[in-house]
């Protein structure tokens, strides 16, 4: 898939709550094809401490409206500046980057469990939609600290069953995603996951113990985003691989995690 540098136009900047914004962007030409799990490198203007682009997951692609969505957690000055863009502003973005999730072949209907934690749910909305379009049944298990941190629940609910956990018990089952009862009640063919590393390690342990195929999306710190600088490497059974190029999505069998 060819990578493009585009000046995208902000269509909408929606404040989800204090720490998150959803940016919907468009382009005068048809957006290039993008796969769920791929990401973009976004150039940040107006932040003196932000030198590099920011790698941000592709949250959703609305082909009818020619829109790409980015769900952004406000972490530092760079993401704060980015969250201030207004409708009509142009943002310089390189996309699509990296290797996304592996979708089951379209004639094989798989029961897919999608596990997300915190802002890690970002790439999972588009994944869920693409799984559904391909005839699979996505089931979502989303976890967060508390109810207000569970993002885009309405969007997920349009695609399939959604189970939730919160650490304070304010929504769904209390605890972590890997403690949810659905995991002992139902059998899944594939698990896809994105979230904080400790969560993904727990998910990987569960998948491995139960012999379920599992892919996880990593977020190692990166510079170039295209496999040139070799900064964002993950240690794998093939040696150091670039998360930006050979990932961000990896099958847990490739990783050297202690699971």
């Amino acid at each position: 898939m060819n990578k493009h540098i585009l000046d995208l136009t902000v269509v909408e900047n929606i404040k989800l709550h204090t720490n998150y914004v959803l940016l919907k962007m468009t382009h005068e030409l048809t957006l290039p094809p993008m796969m769920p799990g791929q990401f973009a490198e976004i150039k940040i203007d107006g932040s003196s401490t932000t030198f590099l682009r920011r790698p941000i997951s592709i949250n959703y692609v609305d082909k009818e409206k020619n829109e790409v969505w980015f769900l952004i957690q406000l972490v530092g000055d760079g993401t704060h500046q980015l969250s201030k863009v207004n409708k009509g502003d142009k943002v310089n973005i390189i996309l699509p980057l990296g290797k996304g999730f592996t979708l089951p072949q379209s004639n094989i209907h798989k029961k897919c469990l999608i596990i997300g934690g915190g802002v890690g749910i970002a790439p999972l909305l588009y994944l869920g939609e693409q799984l559904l379009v391909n005839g699979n049944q996505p089931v979502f298990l989303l976890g967060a600290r508390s109810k207000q941190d569970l993002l885009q629940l309405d969007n997920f609910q349009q695609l399939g069953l959604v189970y939730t956990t919160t650490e304070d018990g304010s929504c769904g089952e209390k605890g972590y995603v890997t403690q949810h009862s659905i995991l002992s009640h139902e059998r899944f063919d594939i698990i896809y996951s994105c979230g904080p590393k400790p969560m993904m390690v727990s998910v990987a342990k569960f998948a491995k113990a139960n012999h379920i195929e599992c892919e996880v999306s990593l977020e190692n710190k990166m510079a170039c985003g295209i496999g040139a600088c070799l900064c964002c490497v993950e240690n794998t059974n093939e040696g150091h691989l670039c998360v930006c190029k050979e990932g961000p999505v990896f099958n847990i069998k490739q990783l050297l995690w202690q699971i």
Partner: protein
Amino acid sequence: MANLNVNINGLLMNNPVMTASGTFGYGKEYEDFVDLEKIGGIIVKGTTLHKREGNPYPRMAETPSGMLNAVGLQNKGVNYFINHIYPQIKDIPTNMIVNVSGSSIESYVKTAEAINELEKIPAIELNISCPNVKKGGMAFGVSIQGASEVVSAVRKVYKKCLIVKLSPNVTDITEIARAAEASGADSVSLINTILGMAIDAEHRRPLLSTVTGGMSGAAVKPIALRMVWQVAKAVKIPVIGLGGIMNARDAIEFILAGASAIQIGTANFIDPTITVKVVEGINDYLERHHYKSINDIIGALEI
């Protein structure tokens, strides 16, 4: 259109803009963004005799107007380069130059000898300045004796254009540049990264697995520019300037300071098309000031 051709002691380039090793992969990574033919020369990732896994993650930390890296020369070794990468890049219509690094004089020599056989590689850049490896690398580049020994040894086996990349982590960079020149270098390139450090105060830990790393980006430009100016006065061989070049104006500053060519490194990460923009910007500058050739402004700084 002004004449942008430069001659680095026999290495002929259509323009003075090159890419810095380790920031442009093997060129192919940038094919979607730029017409590689429009770049004067591409210096590919540092290559060593044997495969190197590089340093553990994390290897990168962003700093104000710059970044630190501690990649540690991750590469698959010179044989892999010759058998698997060279066939893919040999027909890219620009100067494809290999950055050669080593942990001993013998390993530098063997690697340079192997690259010497590759018809479509017109030059090597001898890296005696990598701050991120324990043995070799910068160790050779911080003493006159070390630099002289490794450059002389490689000169004996390498018959084409030999560029020596210098470290800024020295007391007097002009001494090392003179040593490289006296030992047979055709050109020197400078600066490699400056040794730096970053700390995560919240967790009381270094941000790099190696604690220290090499700093690059806009923040290092004034230091690089000063060193290029000093070295250009100290040696007769052509100087290639790099360090924090973010745009055409930066590139012209280096050329005025005495650089015959320049390299763009970290800026590629922010704008993958910056190389061709700098070529155009240099041409615009020459036309605006009524210069016919880039050679008219090399070292043209008036003091």
